[in-house]
């Protein structure tokens, strides 16, 4: 049992860094920027999270996994609070997270101004790094991804959309 006086938010963050995304298991929830804050209220640990996409079905699973990780580490009073504002953005994804995504075969989000609503361009193939790629579909296997194909190595790949 961990006593309240000995808890530091740093310890909690270290535990959260071990919790992975159920859909993209190479990324942790801290890589994704889902964890917005950790608070210690008396003897209770409060973890504040925000969903990536409004309808992301992984959020319930992520909340359960956070609880389990904290329980395993001896914390018993846990509160998971989900907030919507400010809205999650891929800008919160860590550089380490983007690197892991690419190694996993998913092109990481690449910010491009698109005030006119035009499609993202210059997405590099995670396999051969060629930027000669094309959009196959705006929507991929999960809400956060689009489907691309490399015109050079011909490999189809997922692109984690800017959001």
């Amino acid at each position, binding site marked *: 049992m961990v006593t309240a006086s000995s808890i530091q938010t740093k310890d909690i963050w270290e535990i959260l860094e071990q919790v992975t995304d159920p859909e993209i298991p190479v990324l942790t929830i801290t890589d994704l920027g889902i964890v917005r804050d950790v608070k210690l209220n008396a003897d209770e640990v409060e973890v504040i999270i925000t969903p990536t996409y409004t309808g992301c*079905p992984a959020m319930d699973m992520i909340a359960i996994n956070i609880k389990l990780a904290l329980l395993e580490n001896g914390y018993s009073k846990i509160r998971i609070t989900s*907030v919507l*504002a400010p*809205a999650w953005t891929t800008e919160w994804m860590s550089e380490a997270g983007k690197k892991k995504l690419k190694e996993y075969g998913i092109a990481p989000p690449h910010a491009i101004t698109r005030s006119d*609503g035009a499609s993202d361009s210059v997405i590099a193939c995670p396999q051969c790094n060629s930027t000669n790629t094309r959009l196959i579909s*705006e*929507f991929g296997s999960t809400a956060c991804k689009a489907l691309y194909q490399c015109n050079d190595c011909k490999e189809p790949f997922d692109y984690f959309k800017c959001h």
Partner: protein
Amino acid sequence: MISQMNSSLIDYTLHLADTNLILAQRNAEWCGHGPILEQDIAITNTSLDLIGQARNFYQYAALLINESKNNQGLKAPSPGGEGVGGEVTEDSLAYLRTEREFKNCLLAEQPNGDWGQTILRQFFFSAHQFLLYEKLQHSTDEQIAAIAAKALKEVTYHLRWSSEWVVRLGNGTEESHQRMLKAIDELWRYTGEMFLPAAYETEAGFDVSLLKGDWFKKIASVFEEATLPVPEKVFMQTGGKTGTHTEHLGYILTELQYLQRTYPGATW
């Protein structure tokens, strides 16, 4: 004493939730039936985004309803949807209200028809939702503002995707063009309602009639590219926002609510 404002806010939140849920349910009917795999995934992804929005609005409505009940007890006006033990939750609001209690726009409940009709329905809807959420993200109600600001990013995608399809089909083959003309004929009459505010909308929301000009401009520019005509004056069907629906909603709810009606309180 519950204020008129609070009651309108509950109705308004339910209206936003219902419209998203019913369109999501319609789009989800395509699951496994899309014209090609990528578009099957696209339409069901859109459906998932809309369900997510619906959940956020239902959760907020449930919070408002339970609060007003606690303050007022039995005297509180009920929008329906009490679950086991009289408690209102996001699930009871979706699964236990009747057709007359649903406040969705008529456009959302119209049948899928062919792919062109589904696309056109999404385009009309997303063009409206985009403009609406642009305004609602600055709402003085913090929760509605937060839901709108977050969803706006997704709606931008829906609008882009559906616009591209309208152009592709309108400007495609003679067959696809004819089908789009038929879809316009089917659906145009349900677009006017989106800009005619119900009493609760005027009270709690944003004046949707102000969006009409920009919506029309968007439709006209995409239709021009798609070589499709913008209809002249057409009689507009209304009533969905206040619970008077077309014959389709009952069938949707029958399927959507079947499990909870047959096995009350069943959990996954």
